[in-house]
């Protein structure tokens, strides 16, 4: 009789312990999500109100939620990943806020006259300075001098647009698009000068 009572008591105790274990792990699981979010909220205190909307609400928080959901089945990975992301932002929040303010304040459209590179209807166009420096470097960089590049262009297929011609040259000779555009542009300029002189 006593043995039965002990067995019953043992079973009840085991059930209670199992239920408690479940409750405790559930509680810990909840805290795992809260800890990185609390760190992230702390990081957001370095942001001004407008930045809290654009940086914290739109960028940081969705990323953290994604990190926490993505590793849902592995609580330790989730804790490490989420905490690492939130902590790195806590450390760098001031720097990010400062950069955002700088780029926001100075966000004026670029002036095409001072920009060394622009993409117009005729393809990639370099500023005169950049163009000269590219042309000067071409023999050393490509191992082929300019007259030889011009000969290759003249013996290549005929294209109507400069961009098509530069793309063909870049692909055919295996050089960068920047150099190919510079060669094509230089070739055109010299041809025009020859025509004017003739």
């Amino acid at each position: 009789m006593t043995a039965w009572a002990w067995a019953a008591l043992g079973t009840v105790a085991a059930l209670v312990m199992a239920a408690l274990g479940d409750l405790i792990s559930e509680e810990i699981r909840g805290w795992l999500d809260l800890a990185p979010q609390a760190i992230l909220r702390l990081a957001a205190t370095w942001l001004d109100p407008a930045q809290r909307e654009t940086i914290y609400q739109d960028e940081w928080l969705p990323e953290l939620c994604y990190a926490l959901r993505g590793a849902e089945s592995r609580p330790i990975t989730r804790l490490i990943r989420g905490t690492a992301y939130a902590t790195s932002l806590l450390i760098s929040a001031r720097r990010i806020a400062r950069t955002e303010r700088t780029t926001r304040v100075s966000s004026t459209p670029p002036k095409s006259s001072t920009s060394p590179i622009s993409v117009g209807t005729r393809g990639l166009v370099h500023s005169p300075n950049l163009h000269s420096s590219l042309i000067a470097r071409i023999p050393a960089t490509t191992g082929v001098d300019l007259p030889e590049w011009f000969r290759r262009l003249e013996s290549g297929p005929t294209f109507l647009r400069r961009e098509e011609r530069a793309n063909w040259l870049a692909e055919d000779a295996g050089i960068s698009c920047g150099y190919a555009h510079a060669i094509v542009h230089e070739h055109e300029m010299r041809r025009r000068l020859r025509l004017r002189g003739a």
Partner: protein
Amino acid sequence: MEPPAEDLTLTPKMAAVIKIFLEDTQQPRYGLELMRLAGQPSGTLYPILMKFERAGWLTAGKEDIDPKTEGRPARRFYRVTGSGALAAHHQLAELSERYRPPAAVQPRLAPQGSTA
């Protein structure tokens, strides 16, 4: 029409980030993913993304999900623009030029069999 990309001088860290976008220009990229792929901490990555976005090299958007179904808010993604990709190619070539060792310098090796 897409505005032209503003000129930016790339640093090696910026190059590591923009290269990821050039691997697949149609692929949207996310902050945490970029931190892992570029091996850059958030304090480096986010300011770089802001500079690229401001210069017109990158454009940002919202992930196309239903937050209620997914149980999480939509993330912000970045994608390279056409003019940004072109400018990035050019600037990566420039950066590679800046770090190319001079051709005249050859490593001096000890002659074979020498004990000195």
